C-alpha cells in the first residue's frame, strides 16, 4: 500500500539549503462519497443527495468562510492543498474550516490530494507556487469527476478568473461562488457573500462609483517588507492596538521596543486598524504629541458620548488613566507627554464578527433591491461598518451580526457583510444573547459526546466508593453548607467539631468534581474551553452539564456526596496546628442561606448542634480575618447590586445593593484559608506546574487617580504597601458615613484583576496576591463553576499520591495557554455579568424614572461623572448642553478637583453628594439609554 516517491525541494532559511523530504503517495485515500463503490465508504461524509459535490479553491475558503458555515452549503471537498494554503494565510479561518470538517452534522470531507497517487502533481519548471496549487486543485476536481463517473456532478468553485477558465477548458464544471449561490435561489444567502475587494491592491481598478465622494481618506499601508526592515532599524514599532473603550478615537499600542504605550489619536492616525490588530506604528515628532492631545477634546466628529454604566470592578474595567483633564489644563510642566504615533501598516488583522444594529435610515425607494446600510457595533471600539443587504426592512430593528471584509483607502468605513440576525432590538432575550456573543461565551447546549461522559442517573454513592481506601468516610460529621439563597450548585460545605483538647477540627468539603470529570474526555475538554460558569441576572450558563452541576456534585442537604476535604486542627485562637487533605464521603445536614445562617447565629435561643458549630466557626473566622487584615489584606468595597426578578416575566422588580453579612465573611474566610493551604501543598509537590492565582501589586501610576482624589478631599493615603494602604483606608473617616466606603470603592477600581498562572512561568516573589496579602493563593473551592479549581483538584490528588498527574502537565506551553484561556474566560464572564446587570438596570428604569442621591467621582471639562451608590451605576452629568459646546462659564480646577461657575456662584467638589434624576430616554428609535440630570 506504500507507493514511494521522494522529491527534492529547496527552502530558504537565511541561506539557501537543499532539503530532501520524503513524500509518500498512497492508494488508500478514499474519496469520501457515500455513493462511491470503489472506495471504503465507512469514512464517507459526502451525501448521496443530488446536489453537486463542491471542490473549493483557496480564495473562496479564505473570503467566504462565513458563507460556508451556513448549513445551506454542504457536500464540500476540502483539499489538503487548500487547507495548507489557508493555514498559512489565516489561522483563524483555518480553525473554522477544521471545525466544519469535524462537525458530524456537516458534510465536509478532507481529501488528502497531495498524498493520493493519482492527484499528486509535480512542480513544473517556471511555475509559481500559486499556479501549481491551482493546477493541483483542478487535477483533484477532475479526478473526482472521473472517479465518481456520472453519478453526481462535481463543481469547482473558484473566484480566480484564470483558474476557472482553465478548468472549463479541461472539462471540469467550474463556477464562481456568486453564481453558485445565485443558482441555489436563496436570497438571504446572497447577503452572506463577501464582496471581493482587496484593500490597497488594485486600487485603480476600483470603479469610480461616486467620483465626487471618492477621495483618499487614509494613507496607504506600507508593504510588509518595508515594515519588517523598519522594525529592525527601530523606526517603526510593533504592538497590539487597543482602542479606548470610552473614546473610540483614541487607541494605545503597547510597544516593547520603546517600553511604553504609544497613543494614537483619531481615525486618520489609526489608519483603518481595528481593536486587537497587530500593527506597525511610526512615532510622530515630539512637538505633535501635545498638540494632538488638545485636539481630541474638540474632535468629537460623531456625537460619541459616555453612557451610563456599572461601576468598574477593577482598573481593567475602568476608563484609562489618561484623563481629558490633563489635556485641558495643558501646562507642559505636568508629566512628560506620552509618545503619540500613527499606524503605517497592519501586521495581523483581528477581524471577526461583531454584534450590533443598523443605523436607522429611511427605506430606499423600490424595496427588495440591494441597499447599502451602516452597521453600528455594540462594542464602541469598532467603527461603523458598511454592509450591502437585500432584506433591509427585516434587519432595521434587529440585532444582527456582521463580519468585516475589507477597508480600502477611499472609504471612511470598512465594508462587511451580514452574517445572521439575533432578534428584535430591546427584547430582553435578544439583548442577553448579544451580551453572550460579545463576550465570546458558549451558551449552546452540551453536545451528545459530552453528555455520554456523565454517570447514569439517578446517581448515588455506591458501595465501591465507600470501600475505596482513598476515600475517608466522613458521613458521621455534622456538615452543612452556607450559600446565597436559591443556590443550586453548592460546591462547598463546612464542619466544625470541638476536640477534647480544647482545639477545633474545622473541615472545608468541596464537591469532588474530578471524580466525574476525567482528563481527556469530551466533558473535560468542553469544561476547559468554557473555563467558568457565567452568571447573568436571569440565567446561568453552566460550565458542566446540569446533572453534575445541580445534582451529582452539588453538596445538597441530606444526601451522601463525594467530596475533597481540607481538614485543619485549629486552636481557639485560630492558629492552624495541622492540615490534612483527603477525598471523602459526606452527608450534609443542612443547606443554609446566608440569611438563615446569620439568623441562627443571632438568635440566642437556638442551641442546636448546627448553630453551635456556626458560632464556633464564626468566632474562629473573625480571628482569622483580623489576622489577615493585620497582615495587610485590603478590605475593598464593591458596589454589587442585586435584582429581584419577576418569576413570570423575568423583568426586574427591585434593585438594591448586595448586603454582606457576617455569615458571608465567615464562609469566605474558610474558603480563603482552604485555598491558601491547598496552594502551599501543591506548590510543594509540583513547583513547576502548579496553577496558582496572583494579584500584581498596583503601580504608582495606577493609584494616581486615587491619590489625586484623596489629596483634593484632604486625605493622606499611604500606598507604599498593601498594609500601609489598608491602614490609611481604615483611617479615612470623614464626617459623612458613606465616605469610607466611597474611598474604598475608588481604591478597588485602581487595582488590576488577579490572574491565573503556572508556577513555572514566574519566579516565587511574583506569586504574591496583593489584595489578600497572601504569599500564595489558588482556587480550590468552586470546581463546579470554575475550571481552574478542577485543575487544582487534580494537582492536589496527585500530590497526595491518589492519582497520577495527567500527561498534560508535562507540556509547559500548553499549560500557559490553558491559564491564558482561564483568564480570558474569567474576564469575559465578569464582563458578561456586568453587561447583564446594565441591561436589567435599563429595563428597570424604563418604567421608573427616579430621583436619587449620587456622588461626584470625577470632574470633566463640561460636567462630572457621578456614582449612584444605591444602584451601583456610574454615568456622566452634563453641566452644559450639548449644543453649547464651549463650556465657557465653567472652570475646572485641576488641583482642587472641582468645577466652578465662572461667576463663583456654584462649585462642585469631588466626592460631593448631589441629587440627580434618572430616566430612560430614546434619542434615536430603539436605542434607549439611561440619562442622568442634575436636580
Amino acid at each position, binding site marked *: 500500500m506504500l507507493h514511494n516517491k521522494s522529491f527534492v525541494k529547496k527552502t530558504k532559511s537565511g541561506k539557501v539549503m537543499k532539503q530532501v523530504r520524503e*513524500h509518500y503517495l498512497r492508494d488508500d485515500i478514499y474519496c469520501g462519497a457515500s455513493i462511491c463503490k470503489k472506495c471504503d465508504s465507512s469514512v464517507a461524509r459526502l451525501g448521496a443527495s443530488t446536489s453537486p459535490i463542491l471542490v473549493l479553491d483557496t480564495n473562496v475558503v479564505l473570503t467566504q468562510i462565513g458563507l460556508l458555515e451556513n448549513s445551506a452549503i454542504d457536500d464540500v471537498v476540502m483539499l489538503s492543498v487548500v487547507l495548507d494554503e489557508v493555514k498559512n494565510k489565516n489561522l483563524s479561518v483555518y480553525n473554522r474550516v477544521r471545525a466544519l470538517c469535524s462537525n458530524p452534522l456537516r458534510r465536509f470531507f478532507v481529501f488528502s490530494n497531495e498524498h493520493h497517487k493519482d492527484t499528486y502533481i509535480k512542480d513544473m519548471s517556471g511555475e509559481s507556487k500559486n499556479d501549481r496549487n491551482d493546477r493541483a486543485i483542478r487535477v483533484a476536481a477532475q479526478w473526482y469527476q472521473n472517479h465518481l463517473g456520472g453519478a453526481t456532478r462535481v463543481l469547482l468553485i473558484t473566484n480566480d478568473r484564470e483558474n476557472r477558465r482553465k478548468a472549463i477548458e479541461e472539462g471540469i464544471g467550474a463556477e464562481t461562488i456568486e453564481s453558485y449561490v445565485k443558482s441555489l435561489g436563496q436570497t438571504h444567502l446572497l447577503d452572506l457573500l463577501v464582496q471581493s475587494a482587496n484593500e490597497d491592491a488594485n486600487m485603480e481598478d476600483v470603479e469610480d462609483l461616486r467620483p465626487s465622494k471618492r477621495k483618499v481618506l487614509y494613507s496607504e499601508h506600507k508593504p510588509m517588507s518595508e515594515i519588517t526592515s523598519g522594525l529592525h532599524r527601530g523606526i517603526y514599532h510593533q504592538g497590539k492596538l487597543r482602542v479606548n473603550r470610552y473614546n473610540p478615537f483614541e487607541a494605545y499600542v503597547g510597544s516593547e521596543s520603546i517600553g511604553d504605550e504609544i497613543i494614537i489619536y483619531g481615525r486618520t492616525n489609526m489608519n483603518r486598524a481595528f481593536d486587537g490588530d497587530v500593527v506597525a506604528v511610526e512615532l510622530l515628532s515630539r512637538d505633535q504629541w501635545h498638540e494632538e492631545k488638545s485636539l481630541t477634546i474638540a474632535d468629537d466628529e460623531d456625537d460619541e458620548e459616555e453612557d451610563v454604566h456599572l461601576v468598574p470592578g477593577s482598573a481593567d474595567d475602568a476608563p484609562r488613566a489618561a484623563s481629558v483633564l490633563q489635556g485641558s489644563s495643558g501646562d507642559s510642566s505636568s508629566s512628560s507627554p506620552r509618545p503619540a504615533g500613527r499606524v503605517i501598516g497592519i501586521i495581523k488583522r483581528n477581524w471577526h464578527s461583531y454584534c450590533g444594529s443598523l443605523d436607522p435610515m429611511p427605506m430606499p425607494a423600490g424595496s427588495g433591491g440591494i441597499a447599502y446600510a451602516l452597521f453600528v457595533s455594540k462594542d464602541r471600539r469598532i467603527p461603523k461598518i458598511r454592509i450591502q443587504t437585500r432584506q433591509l426592512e427585516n434587519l432595521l430593528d434587529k440585532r444582527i451580526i456582521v463580519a468585516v471584509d475589507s477597508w480600502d483607502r477611499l472609504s471612511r468605513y470598512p465594508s462587511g457583510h451580514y452574517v445572521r440576525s439575533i432578534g428584535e432590538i430591546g427584547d430582553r432575550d435578544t439583548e442577553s444573547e448579544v451580551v453572550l456573543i460579545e463576550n465570546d461565551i458558549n451558551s449552546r447546549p452540551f453536545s451528545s459526546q459530552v453528555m455520554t461522559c456523565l454517570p447514569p442517573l439517578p446517581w448515588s454513592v455506591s458501595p465501591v466508593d465507600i470501600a475505596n481506601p482513598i476515600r475517608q468516610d466522613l458521613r458521621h460529621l455534622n456538615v452543612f453548607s452556607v450559600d446565597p439563597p436559591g443556590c443550586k450548585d453548592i460546591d462547598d460545605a463546612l464542619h466544625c467539631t470541638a476536640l477534647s483538647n480544647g482545639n477545633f477540627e474545622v473541615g472545608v468539603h468541596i464537591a469532588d468534581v474530578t471524580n466525574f470529570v476525567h482528563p481527556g474526555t469530551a466533558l473535560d475538554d468542553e469544561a476547559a474551553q468554557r473555563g467558568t460558569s457565567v452568571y447573568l441576572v436571569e440565567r446561568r450558563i453552566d460550565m458542566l452539564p446540569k446533572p453534575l452541576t445541580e445534582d451529582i456534585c452539588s453538596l445538597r442537604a441530606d444526601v451522601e456526596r463525594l467530596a475533597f476535604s481540607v481538614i485543619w486542627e485549629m486552636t481557639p485562637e485560630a492558629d492552624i496546628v495541622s492540615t490534612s487533605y483527603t477525598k471523602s464521603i459526606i452527608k450534609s445536614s443542612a443547606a443554609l442561606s446566608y440569611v438563615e445562617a446569620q439568623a441562627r447565629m443571632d438568635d440566642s435561643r437556638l442551641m442546636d448542634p448546627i448553630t453551635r458549630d456556626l458560632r464556633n466557626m464564626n468566632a474562629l473566622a473573625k480571628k482569622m480575618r483580623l489576622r489577615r487584615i493585620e497582615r495587610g489584606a485590603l478590605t475593598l468595597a464593591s458596589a454589587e447590586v442585586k435584582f429581584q426578578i419577576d418569576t413570570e416575566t423575568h423583568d426586574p422588580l427591585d434593585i438594591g445593593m448586595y448586603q454582606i453579612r457576617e455569615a458571608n465573611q465567615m464562609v469566605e474566610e474558610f474558603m480563603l484559608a482552604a485555598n491558601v493551604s491547598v496552594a502551599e501543598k501543591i506548590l510543594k509537590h509540583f513547583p513547576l506546574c502548579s496553577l496558582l492565582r496572583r494579584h500584581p501589586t498596583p503601580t504608582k501610576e495606577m493609584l494616581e487617580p486615587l491619590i489625586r482624589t484623596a489629596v483634593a478631599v484632604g486625605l493622606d493615603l499611604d500606598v507604599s504597601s498593601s498594609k500601609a494602604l489598608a491602614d490609611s483606608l481604615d483611617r479615612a473617616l470623614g464626617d459623612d458615613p458613606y465616605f469610607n466606603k466611597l474611598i474604598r470603592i475608588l481604591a478597588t477600581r485602581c487595582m488590576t484583576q488577579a490572574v491565573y498562572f503556572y508556577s513555572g512561568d514566574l519566579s516565587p516573589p511574583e506569586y504574591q496576591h496583593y489584595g489578600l496579602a497572601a504569599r500564595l493563593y489558588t482556587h480550590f473551592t468552586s470546581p463546579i463553576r470554575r475550571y481552574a479549581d478542577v485543575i487544582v483538584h487534580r494537582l492536589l490528588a496527585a500530590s497526595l499520591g491518589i492519582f*497520577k498527574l495527567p500527561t498534560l502537565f508535562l507540556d509547559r506551553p500548553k499549560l500557559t495557554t490553558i491559564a491564558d484561556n482561564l483568564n480570558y474566560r474569567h474576564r469575559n464572564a465578569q464582563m458578561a455579568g456586568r453587561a447583564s446587570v446594565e441591561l436589567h438596570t435599563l429595563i428597570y428604569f424604563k418604567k421608573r424614572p427616579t430621583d436619587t442621591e449620587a456622588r461626584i467621582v470625577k470632574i470633566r471639562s463640561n460636567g462630572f461623572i457621578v456614582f449612584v451608590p444605591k444602584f451601583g451605576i456610574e454615568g456622566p452629568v452634563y453641566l452644559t448642553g450639548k449644543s453649547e459646546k464651549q463650556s465657557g462659564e465653567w472652570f475646572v480646577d485641576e488641583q482642587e478637583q472641582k468645577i466652578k461657575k465662572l461667576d463663583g456662584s456654584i462649585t462642585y467638589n469631588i466626592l460631593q453628594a448631589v441629587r440627580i434624576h434618572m430616566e430612560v430616554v430614546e434619542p434615536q428609535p430603539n436605542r434607549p439609554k439611561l440619562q442622568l440630570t442634575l436636580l
Partner: protein
Amino acid sequence: MEFVTPEGLRQDGRRPRELREMRAEIGAVSKANGSAVFEMGNTKVLAAVYGPREVQNKSQQMSNQALVRCEYTMANFSTGDRMRKPKGDRRSTEISLVIRQTMEECILTHLMPRSQIDIFVQVLQADGGTRSACINAATLALADAGIPMRDIVTSCSAGYLNSNALLDLNYVEDSAGGPDVTVGFLPKLDKVTLLQMDAKLPIDVFEDVMELAIEGCKAIATYIRNVMLEHTKQLEYHRDG
C-alpha cells in the same frame, strides 16, 4: 506544529504506524570482511566489519572472549549544511558506544577469544533514526562477515507527538523535541537489548510507544532476514554457476 493531520496522515504521507521504505544491500565494500548499506527512507548508512582478527593493542586482548570495537562517523555531506564534522565528538562517541554494546550482546564473543572485531559505520545521508539504521546495517555486515551471532539484532525508533505514537521518526519529527524511544531487539529470542529515551513520558504511554518500536523491529527483522536469504541464494547461485 501538526505532525499528524486529523485525517491520520503524517507530513510525509505515512500513517502513524508505518515504517519508511527500507532498502538493504550486502557487500558494498569488497575490502572488508563483511559490509552492508542500509536505508530507511532518506537515512542511508554504510557498515563495514573487519575481523575476527588479531588484537592490535595487546593490552586490550582478552583471553576468554573477543574484543568488539565500533566507530560511528557522519559523512560531511550527510546533512544539508555540508559542515566538516569533528571526529570523536560527544554525540558520535556515545552512539559508537551504544552500537558496540548492542552488537556485543548478540555476537558469540566467547567463541573467538584473543581476537578483535571492528565495526565501522558511516552515515552517508541523515534523515532521522541514524542510530537504528546503523545497528541494522551492522547486523547485516556482521552476518556478511560470517561472525557467529545469537540472533540478528534490529533496531527501530518510535516517538510520541500530538498525542500519537509514531513509528520510525524522520528528521522533521525527530527535531520536534518530543520523546524518542530507540529500541534494539532480538526477534527470535524476543529480548530487548537496547532501550533509549531522551525525554519524559508517562509510563502507560511509554509502554505503548515501546511496544510500537518493538513491532517496528520485528518488521525490520523480517525484511533483513529476507535480504540475507536472497543474498545467500545469490551466493549459492554464483558458486554453482
